[in-house]
C-alpha cells in the first residue's frame, strides 16, 4: 500500500462532476458574501423611497447590470446544483450525472443571458 501520487489524487479535477462541485461551492461562497450587501441595499427603503430610487438609478449602469447578470447566474447555478445534490441523496440513483450537471450549468447561463437581454 503506497500513498497516492499527487497526479492520481488530483486526476478527478478534470471531471465535469468535480467542476460541478467546485461551481456549487464557489457560487455558494459568492452568494454568502453578496447577500448582506443585497439586504443593506434593500434596507435603504426604510429611509424613504427616494434613497432606494437613487440606488435603483445607480444599478441601471451597464457595468452593474453585467455584475447582476453574474449574480443571477450564481443564484440559478447554485439552486440547480443544489437540486442535483438533493436528487442524488434522496432518490434512486440515475445515470447521466454528467449530462445533468452540464444541463444545470447551461440552464443557469441561459437564465443569466436572458436576464441581461431583458434588463439592458
Amino acid at each position: 500500500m503506497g500513498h497516492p501520487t499527487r497526479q492520481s489524487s488530483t486526476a478527478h479535477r478534470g471531471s465535469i462532476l468535480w467542476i460541478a462541485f467546485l461551481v456549487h461551492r464557489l457560487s455558494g461562497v459568492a452568494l454568502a458574501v453578496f447577500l448582506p450587501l443585497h439586504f443593506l441595499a434593500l434596507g435603504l427603503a426604510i429611509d424613504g423611497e427616494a434613497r432606494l430610487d437613487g440606488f435603483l438609478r445607480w444599478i441601471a449602469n451597464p457595468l452593474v447590470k453585467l455584475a447582476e447578470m453574474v449574480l443571477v447566474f450564481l443564484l440559478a447555478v447554485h439552486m440547480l446544483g443544489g437540486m442535483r445534490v438533493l436528487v442524488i441523496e434522496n432518490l434512486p440513483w440515475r445515470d447521466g450525472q454528467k449530462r445533468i450537471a452540464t444541463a444545470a450549468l447551461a440552464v443557469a447561463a441561459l437564465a443569466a443571458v436572458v436576464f441581461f437581454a431583458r434588463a439592458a
Partner: protein
Amino acid sequence: MNVRLYILQRATAAVMAPLVLAHLVVIFYATSRGLSAVEILGRTRGSVGWALFYGLFVLAAATHGAIGVRVVASEWTGLRGRQLDALMLGAGAILAALGLRAVVAVTL
C-alpha cells in the same frame, strides 16, 4: 458537520428551491418592466403575502448560508470546534438581522 446541521442544510435547501425560482421570476418581471422604487414598494408594502414569502426566504437563506460558511471554513481554514460554531452563529445572525430588516423595509 453533525447530522442535525446536515439535515437542516438539506431541509432549508428544499424549502428554498421553489422560493428561488419565484424570486428569479420576480427579478425578471421587475427588471424587464424597469419598475421604479415607488412602483416596487407600491406592490410590496402592506402585503402580508410578500412579507411571509420573503420572511421565510430570509430565515431559510440565513440558516443555509451560515451552515455553508461553517462547512467551507472547516475545509479551507484551520478553524475547529467552537470557533466554527461561533463563525456559523455570527454569519447566521448577520444574515437574519439584515435580511429581516430588508423585509420590513420593503413590506411594512
